[in-house]
């Protein structure tokens, strides 16, 4: 909160400095998500919490100004949600200053969203924070990326881009906490609501606990290649303490990606090595093993206003034998190679005012799945109406999607943009 206020003040001061005419924009939106089945794990909550993962009114205001060599941007949400105890919250999503210092050097300082990599809803080298709670409860896809406080430096040298983004502290993924969606408690071995949610130990805010992200990108003919690096923490609390809490183990990673048109297809491939620094030899069953993760996929236009895509994603555990022998008897075991397949189809109709989209994950190894479908209609230039479904299932309660299997929901959004 204190950081938010400081960022707000700095950007507002900058507003008046760089421009006399800032541009104001934003939207007002109603979001209503409804469960398609009863979730007994959430039985301790109120009726609304059990029936509606989200029931909110959200207003967003953006403010931006551009000078000759600098730019500021401010984006703040005010949301009031009937399903949360606090009801209303201010969410400062972006507040940054961008400076074009020379012909080849830009810096972007402040709260911002960041995305890189080639995947479509799958990630290997993009270790910027993600908001899985928003992802599963009917918010716009843009909310998958929560903001982070970063100093991002971009250097552009004769066709090669070098970027370093650094934060003095760690921003974890926003994962469901048992209020909007039930979650798996590994200590209890079952799916629970917020009252039985496991305790998560936050990463302390000190100098050595910062995050650093790097990227080196270039092109060769029509192909785009990129190398990546990261030093920080596992984005979700995958470590367990002996006293029964979850924590974020240290992580560093390095990887690369390639994107290239092949005939009428657009192909991409990406891989990353995740080194679990607190357990490099994989002996400690309470800390995730080092792994290689990656994916490959294609996208293709199937004709006018039709696009389809498919991806194969895999995680390969590097010390699976040690992991397996270290596990307590009866504990859930993951395969050495875990595969997931994704598919997407998008169709635009009615002069591109209607977007019909379906995206599916199928966890081949974990036997779980997630289907995201939506129909969006731009009634006018200002009003957009979306209905969709976020359906989740799985055979085991401890897998990525399996733990959310009783949280399938349908949702509707109406947004007025200005």
């Amino acid at each position, binding site marked *: 909160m204190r950081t938010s206020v400081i960022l707000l003040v700095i950007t507002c001061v900058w507003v008046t400095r760089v*421009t006399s*005419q800032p*541009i104001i*924009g*934003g*939207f007002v939106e109603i979001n209503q998500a409804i469960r398609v089945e009863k979730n007994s794990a959430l039985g301790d909550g109120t009726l609304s919490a059990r029936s509606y993962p989200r029931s909110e009114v959200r207003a967003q205001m953006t403010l*931006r100004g*551009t*000078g*000759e*060599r600098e*730019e500021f941007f401010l984006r703040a949400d005010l949301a009031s949600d009937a399903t949360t105890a606090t009801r209303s919250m201010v969410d400062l999503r972006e507040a940054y200053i*961008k400076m*074009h210092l020379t012909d080849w050097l*830009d810096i972007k300082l402040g709260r*911002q*969203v*960041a*995305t*890189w990599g*080639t995947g479509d809803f799958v990630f290997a080298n993009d270790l910027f924070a993600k908001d899985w709670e928003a992802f599963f409860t009917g918010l*716009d*896809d*843009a909310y*998958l*990326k929560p903001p982070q406080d970063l100093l991002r430096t*971009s250097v*552009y040298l004769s*066709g090669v*881009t070098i970027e370093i983004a650094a934060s003095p502290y760690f921003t974890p993924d926003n994962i469901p906490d048992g209020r909007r969606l039930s979650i798996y408690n590994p200590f209890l071995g079952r799916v629970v609501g917020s009252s039985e949610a496991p305790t998560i130990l936050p990463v302390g805010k000190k100098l050595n606990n910062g995050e650093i992200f790097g990227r080196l*990108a270039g092109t060769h003919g*029509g192909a*785009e290649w990129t190398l990546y690096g990261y030093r920080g923490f596992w984005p979700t609390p995958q470590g367990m303490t002996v006293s029964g809490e979850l924590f974020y183990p240290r992580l560093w990673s390095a990887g690369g990606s390639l*994107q290239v*048109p092949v*005939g*009428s*297809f*657009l192909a*991409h491939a990406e891989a990353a090595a995740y080194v679990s620094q607190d357990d490099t030899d994989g002996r400690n069953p309470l800390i995730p093993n080092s792994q290689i993760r990656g994916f490959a996929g294609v*996208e*293709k*236009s199937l*004709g*006018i*206003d039709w*696009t389809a895509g498919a991806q194969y994603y895999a995680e390969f555990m590097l010390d699976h034998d040690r992991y397996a022998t270290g596990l307590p008897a009866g504990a859930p075991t993951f395969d050495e190679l875990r595969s997931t397949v994704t598919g997407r189809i998008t169709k*635009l109709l009615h*002069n*591109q*005012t209607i977007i019909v989209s379906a995206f599916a994950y199928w966890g081949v190894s974990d036997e779980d799945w997630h289907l995201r479908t939506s129909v969006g209609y731009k009634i*006018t*230039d*200002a009003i*957009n109406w979306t209905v969709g479904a976020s359906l989740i299932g799985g055979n085991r309660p401890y897998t990525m999607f399996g733990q959310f299997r009783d949280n399938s929901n349908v949702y509707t959004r109406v*947004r007025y*943009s*200005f």
Partner: protein
Amino acid sequence: MLKTPIRSGAAALCAVALLTAYPPGPVHAQTSAALDLMNQSHLAYYYAGDGGQARVVMVLTDAQGKMRTREFWIARRDIADMGDQRYYTYFLKPADVARTAFLVHKKAQANDDRWLYIPTLDLVKRIAADDRRASFVGSDFTYEDISGRLPALDNHEIIGPDTAMGRSVTKVKSTPKDPKTADYAYRFTWVDDETNLPLKEEYIDKKGVAVRQFQIDSVETIEAIPTAVVRTMFNLETGRKTTISFTNVSYKTNLKADDFNERLLKNPPADFAR
């Protein structure tokens, strides 16, 4: 775009048309003159100057008179006349797509490379080459209408002198060499005798019915270049029309060919963003 032998053949033809100093032989006089005229028209309309920029207002009106508006900046840089081009589009309106940017490396000999920048995710997304007959941002203009169809893809025939939009023009009939590359059977173009601009076009389907009509509503001379500043495409089947108006036109853009990259997608020129 198509990656077929036709296209390389087309490029060769096109090069010949541009470079040859010899008078055409008597048998092909008619078609060669027609191709030459269409090449001149293509250059005047799609390759004016070496590049340029403009602020564009696009109004889409449906049969019921309901309007939708898009506003964007567009910048272009030519690598070679009748050859590769770079296009950059920065959206201002509607509000939900403000700050979205679109980059195209248009290639005369291969599929275009296209990227989209989605500001709310800070995501640069490479997108699969779409069908060139797809609509540009939901309007009655296709991608091909916006970035041009090479004259060498069609057989051209001069019909004769005519009048269009109150000016003396030459009427040309163009028939796609490969019917699969177009969703019309043939089209007529009325080429202005003075500026070579395509003042009017009619797209005719297999049954001989006009399905779309294009016209240049207003021409202004900007930096000594005759420029079509207002253009309309009528969809005669649906009763829809789209009008594009250009303001702030300049052929002196600061953007060099190498600037049409990821940095531009994320950082619009200051005069575009204000």
